[in-house]
C-alpha cells in the first residue's frame, strides 16, 4: 500500500488528536505487512479488523503474498486468523524473524475441526516451536455469568473481549502475555533476531468491532515488537 506524505501526516495527526499512541518511525519506515491467509476463508472479519486498525492509526502497511514479499523490508509481520499455514508462509515467518522483525501470529483454530486443528498444531510445534492445547469453549451452554475478557499484560495491560473459544498454550519457553480464566492464551518469545508473538484468542474481530483498547494494544505491540530487536 503506498501512502503519500500528506496522508501519512494526516493520519498521524488524527491518531494524536484521538489520544492514541502513534506507531514508531521504525515501523512506518520499514512497514507492517499483513499476510492474508484467509482469502475466502472463515475469518475475514479478523483480517478486516487488522486492516482497519492499521489504516486508522496511520501505520504504513501493505497486504502481501507469501511468495512475493521481502522479509528485509518488514518491521512487523501480522498473520491474522491463521489456520492452515502452508510451507511458503512458514518460510516467510522464519525469514522475517531472522531479519529482526516482530511477527504476530493469530491462531484461527478456535473453531477448527479436529483434523484442521491437528495440522495447525503440528506446524506450530515443528516450525515455530509453539506448543498449543486443544481449543477451550469459554461459554458452555446456559452460562451467562462469566467475565468475558482476555487480560493482556504486555506491552500494556488491556482487557479485550474473548472470542468464545481460545487455543491455550502448552508449557514452553517464553513470556505469557495474556490470560483468560487462568488459561494462558498469548505468548512472546525471541525468535531469530526478532520477536514472535502468538495469539491464541482472536484479536481481529475486536479490532473490527472498534474496541479502542484492542486497537491501542495492537499499536503498542507494533511499536514494541518492531523496535525490540534481539
Amino acid at each position: 500500500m503506498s501512502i503519500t506524505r500528506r496522508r501519512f501526516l494526516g493520519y498521524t495527526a488524527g491518531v494524536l488528536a484521538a489520544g492514541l499512541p502513534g506507531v514508531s518511525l521504525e515501523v512506518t519506515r520499514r512497514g507492517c505487512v499483513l499476510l492474508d491467509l484467509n482469502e475466502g476463508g472463515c475469518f475475514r472479519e479478523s483480517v478486516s479488523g487488522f486492516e482497519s486498525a492499521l489504516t486508522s492509526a496511520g501505520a504504513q502497511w501493505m497486504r502481501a503474498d507469501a511468495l512475493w514479499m521481502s522479509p528485509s523490508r518488514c518491521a512487523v509481520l501480522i498473520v491474522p486468523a491463521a489456520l492452515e499455514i502452508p510451507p511458503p508462509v512458514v518460510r516467510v515467518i522464519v525469514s522475517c524473524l531472522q531479519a529482526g522483525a516482530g511477527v504476530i501470529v493469530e491462531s484461527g483454530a478456535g473453531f477448527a475441526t479436529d483434523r484442521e486443528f491437528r495440522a495447525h498444531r503440528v506446524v506450530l510445534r515443528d516450525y515455530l516451536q509453539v506448543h498449543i492445547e486443544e481449543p477451550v469453549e469459554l461459554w458452555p451452554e446456559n452460562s451467562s455469568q462469566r467475565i468475558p475478557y482476555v487480560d493482556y499484560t504486555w506491552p500494556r495491560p488491556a482487557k479485550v473481549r474473548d472470542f468464545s473459544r481460545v487455543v491455550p498454550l502448552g508449557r514452553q519457553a517464553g513470556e505469557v502475555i495474556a490470560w483468560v480464566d487462568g488459561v494462558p492464551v498469548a505468548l512472546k518469545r525471541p525468535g531469530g533476531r526478532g520477536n514472535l508473538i502468538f495469539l491464541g484468542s482472536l484479536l481481529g474481530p475486536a479490532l473490527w468491532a472498534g474496541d479502542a483498547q484492542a486497537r491501542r494494544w495492537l499499536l503498542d505491540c507494533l511499536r514494541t515488537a518492531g523496535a525490540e530487536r534481539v
Partner: protein
Amino acid sequence: MKKAIGDNMIPKEWGFEKGLELVKQAGFDGIELWLGDVPWFQMGTPDGEVRELRRRVENAGLVVSNVSTGLHWASPLSARDPKVRAQAVRIVEREIETAVLLGTDAILLVAGLVTPEVPYNEVYQRCLEALRSLGEKAARSGVRIGCENCNAEQRFLISPREFWQFLNEVNSPAVGIHLDVGNIHDTGFAEQWIEIHGPRITRIHVKDVMTKRGRCGDQSVYTNLFLGDNNWPAIRGAITKVGYDGWLVAEMEARYRYAPDQQFYDTARAMDRLISGQF
C-alpha cells in the same frame, strides 16, 4: 390492505390442507409460510414440493403473503462460529429462492442476536456485512428482505432511529423492515416506528402486547388484537399517513386453549376493524 396469517398457527393435528381451508373460511387473503417451523416446509423441502405448496395455496383461493422463518434464533447471522454463520446465510438464501417459487416478494429475517457472549458491536458489524451481500442476492431475485424488530428478544436495534440508521448503512433497496407492532413493548410506540420507516416497511406483523406484564417463564405478554396496550387508532393513523397498503400478517404467540380455529375467525374480524379504522 390484505390480511394474512402464519401457517405455524394451524393446529398441529390439522395438517396443511385443512389449515388452508380454515384460513380461507376465516376470511384471510393470504398465508405466511414459515420455513423450518412446520412439517410441510423445511430447509430440505425440494423445489418441486415447494411449487406444490404454492399450487395448494392457490387452489384454496389464497396467495402466499411472504416467507418467514424462526431458524435464525438457533443459527443467527451474528454467530461467531463461521459454520453457524454460513448456515444462517444459507437459510436466507433458501427463503429468497422459495419466495420466488411461491410467487411472493418478501421474506422475514431475525437479523442478529445480542447475547452475554456475543456483544452488540460485533453483532452490528456482522449483520451489516451479511445483509449488504444478501441484499444484492435478494435484489437480483426481485425479493425484499424484511429484518424483523424483535426488540426484547434480540436486544438489538431497539430504537426506531437506530434501526433506521442500520438500514441506511446497509444501503440496499432490497433490505427493509418487517415491522412487528407487538414487539415494541414498553420501549416505544409502534405508530412512531411506522412513521419513521414508512416506505422501508416490507410487511407488518400484527398482535397486541401487554406492556405492563413482564414475561414470566413461558407466559406470554402477547395477546389478541385490541386486548393489549397498543394504541390501535394511532397505529392505523400512521399506516394511512405513510401510505402503507401491503400485507398485515397476524402473528399470535398465545393460542386459544380450546376451539383453536376460533382464533382465526376472531383475528380476521379484528383485522377487518383495523383496516376499516372503525374503532
